[in-house]
């Protein structure tokens, strides 16, 4: 059976596949907002997984291009779940105690408009090699 009979069919299929592989496309692209989510045992226990799922689907719903990566323990176990947000050209900022409500606020204010919200953890280390 022929699956694609017209240009519209092709476009529809392209769109549906693109959503599946855009994690790869985002990795290739430059200048996107990066969000790292601490997903060590402490983070996961505190609900980081839900936060990541929520943020991924929310940003997509709102049509925002954000790269999500999970990372290891950032060392702020007291403030889990913690996430680190890097806007293009800016220093990374770490937010603590991120629940779904906080996540929503971060997306809506900081990621969208660059407006800082409560809950910032001062970074206490230097990183090498990005």
């Amino acid at each position, binding site marked *: *059976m*022929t*699956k*694609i*009979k*017209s*240009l519209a*069919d*092709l476009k529809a*299929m*392209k769109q549906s*596949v*693109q*959503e*599946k*592989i855009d*994690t*790869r496309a*985002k*990795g*290739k692209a430059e200048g996107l907002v990066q969000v790292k989510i*601490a*997903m*060590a045992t402490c983070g996961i226990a505190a609900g980081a997984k839900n936060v*990541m799922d929520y943020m*991924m689907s929310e940003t997509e719903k709102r049509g925002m291009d954000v*790269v*999500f*990566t*999970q*990372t*290891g*323990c950032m060392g702020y176990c007291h403030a889990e779940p913690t996430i680190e947000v890097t806007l293009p050209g800016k220093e990374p900022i770490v937010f603590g105690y991120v629940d779904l409500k906080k996540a929503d606020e971060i997306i809506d204010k900081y990621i969208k408009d660059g407006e800082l919200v409560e809950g910032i953890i001062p970074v206490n280390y230097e990183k090498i*090699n*990005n």
Partner: protein
Amino acid sequence: MAKFKMHLLVCGGTGCNASRSQEIAANLKSSLKDNGLENEVQVILTGCFGFCEKGPIVKVMPDNTFYTEVKPEDATEIIMEHVVKGRKVTRLLYTDPENKQHVADSKHMGFYKKQMRIALRNCGYIDPQNIEEYIGADGYTALAKCLGEMTPEQVINEIKLSGLRGRGGGGFPTGLKWEIASKNHADQKYVVCNADEGDPGAFMDRSILEGDPHTVLEAMAINGYAIGATKGLIYIRAEYPLAINRLLVAIDQAHEYGLLGEDILGSGFNFDIELRYGAGAFVCGEETALIHSMEGQRGEPTFKPPFPAQSGYNKKPTNVNNVETYANIPIIISKGANWFNQIGTEKSKGTKVFALAGQINNVGLIEVPMGITLREIIYEIGGGIKGGREFKAVQTGGPSGGCLTQKHLDTPIDYDNLIAAGSMMGSGGMVVMDETSCMVAIAKFYLEFTVEESCGKCSPCRIGNKRLHEILEKISKGNGTMEDLDTLTNLARVIKDTALCGLGQTSPNPVLSTIENFYDEYVEHIKDKKCRAGVCKSLMQYVIDQEQCVGCTACARNCPVNAISGEKKMPHFINTELCIKCGACIEKCKFNAISIC
């Protein structure tokens, strides 16, 4: 279906495949399952990443982590550390040879910084066996655009405007080739993809077919639409089993999805593709020989004209293009000729894929914009010469090309500059040589190849190259005369002028260009009976330094032909008549008493 948060891309090219990348992928999958992550992390076998030196490669997206020399046993560690705990497995990261630091992701690797991947855009990015991934990566939209919005003339004009030239070696303007084929009328025309990659060391066509087969199918369909052909044939050598396999899968899928066959996308355009297998003869890469081979005749070239565009396969107008040329077509149509012709130099547009090989740190497949210099390729992308030795020459264009030397390091690389420098683009083999390479031996190597592969139809190539080879053999044995050098040059020019096909005409190039650039080395072989690189065995002699030798007898005991004699605790001697120059004595000598001169 749930969306995957992380993608593990495992190289499934021939090279990494041979280093058990299939097993790596299987282990990654089973380890993901053990951790209940099979719905969150996707494992995909892709085409070649190009960094074959350090294969097998596993790339993690979206963070671009680039793991090198991965073994199947490492799979669990990658899953447990990187995926579960989010810590990169440092020991598998690429180490920068200069500062010995681990490089966290591919964007910071010197190998990729200067590259621009157009023909290889999907290699190492999508699953070549899944048509949906190709569609997701913009695949088949160029075909749709041609069928829906463009007339065949517009398609041809777009390709002409792009300035794309044939990537198989000759560099003939692709758009012009299409136009000629479109203007010849016949009841049946053919589109042929030349996948008979024969240059020693070149493997870009194979990698494209393995890593992104659909792009070639799509381009052939576009080509068919443009010239009015409904039938496509891919001539591929039978020694590329993985590429053949992936092509067959791709053709089946394209049929299933209605992107090949009848009435494609409801446009009324029909196009179908079949494979034809070659037995691996070098000459079958020449288009007339290729066509004869497909017809079941002997793979021998015939005189042009008539060109294949006038009378090709089954005497019908036929357009033959190389794999890499085709890989450029869909993206030119999608992004427009004006996007493409901004890249490259005035007369050579776009990019070129090179297979980097020889005495260089980063052996692999690279794609660079035309106009890049040899220096950038060798020292920035290639990571410099192995062992920090001195650069001597780079051979481009395979048996049809020549050598570029130190003085060409800053020449922008394009079709015309390479020809001016006495070499040629060819299909893109690039063999880097250092001071340990003997240029007479190199010329002899390529001549051996030509003598072996000559189809024998015309005498200049069949007999002339044989004689060239004999003279080179004579020089490398230390029996050459200065007249031989003149004979070499003259004979080479005669072959160039009189051979029947392009391959014959270019076959003396390695000889001419090494004489031109390394005349001194030839003279040394002839007059001083010396090979400075220590490659030509007949010109080497092993000598024991009488002062250094303590008479331990280690060399004499290990000499396989008993050529070394001497009393215990007394200096030893080598009988040069018996010596076979195997080097076993040098290895065994603890006092550095044996040297080559």
